[in-house]
């Protein structure tokens, strides 16, 4: 049997995830400071957000995390077909999340609330900051969802070709770790932008 360093592979992935936490952490810091300075305006701007779509997307991402975790436990048991189905379900749920995001963003853009729009610039400073942060933070998060979907789709192909199997699944496990971090970031984005008080 060839030598494999599972601990090393996972440690490397966790270190990468720490840089992701710091990337979003910096944006959360900016959000926290501007929210503190413009509390009332953030509150008003937050009313533009649809709690229903936000909650729906939260449920979708949480469920996709479940299917991701199950796809790994199934491949460990040697259940290739089941693992493939759970991976496909994860890709599908990620895609549904993005479709919701598309409708949400196009609704804001139709109302003229997009970066640098005349309508937005006519609003108060705090509201401009709120929408700026909203677009940057959910936008970079959505980019991570797109990357996650692409990597899981690639893992699907590797599983089909038996390159990921009960005896060698660390690639799928690391992909799962990335997908869960994307979920965790959304867990924080949801109350900060949709449930703002």
């Amino acid at each position, binding site marked *: 049997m060839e030598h*494999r360093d*599972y*601990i090393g592979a*996972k*440690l490397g992935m*966790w*270190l990468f995830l*720490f840089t992701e*936490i*710091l990337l979003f*952490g910096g944006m*959360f*810091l900016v959000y*926290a*400071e501007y929210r*503190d*300075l413009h509390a009332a305006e953030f509150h008003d701007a937050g009313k533009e957000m649809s*709690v229903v779509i936000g*909650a729906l997307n*939260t*449920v979708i991402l*949480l*469920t996709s*995390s*479940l299917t*991701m*975790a*199950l796809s790994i*436990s199934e491949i*460990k*048991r040697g259940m290739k077909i089941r693992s493939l189905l759970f991976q496909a379900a994860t890709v599908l749920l990620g895609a549904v999340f993005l479709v919701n995001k598309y409708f949400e963003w196009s609704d804001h853009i139709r109302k003229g609330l997009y970066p640098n729009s005349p309508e937005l610039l006519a609003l108060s400073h705090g509201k401009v900051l709120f929408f700026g942060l909203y677009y940057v933070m959910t936008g970079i998060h959505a980019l991570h969802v797109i990357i996650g979907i692409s990597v899981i789709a690639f893992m699907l192909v590797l599983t089909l070709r038996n390159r990921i199997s009960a005896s060698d699944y*660390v690639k799928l*496990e690391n992909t*799962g*770790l990335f997908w*869960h*971090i994307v*979920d*965790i970031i959304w*867990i*924080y984005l*949801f*109350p900060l932008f949709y*449930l703002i*008080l």
Partner: protein
Amino acid sequence: MDESTSHTVGTKTFVATWIALLCFTGLTIVAARMQLGQWSMIANIAIASAKASLVLWFFMHLKYERRLFKFLLFVPILTISVIIGLTFFDLWYR
């Protein structure tokens, strides 16, 4: 293969984690509607952190990893906490 990496978590554990996450999502929406004033922000961040911990502990297998992984996670969390804490110290007491 090391036994800590080959631990297979049961389907039941994952489904139970998922149900708990959905309950917390409902709870955070209720907490936001309750007009708790200053406390609502704290309540929502606390609930989000509880959800994040569940994902880390069970979905990301941290429960079954060696101590090094658990310890390392504190590095970015502590870094962010210190940066945000010091920023607010400056913001509020300047």
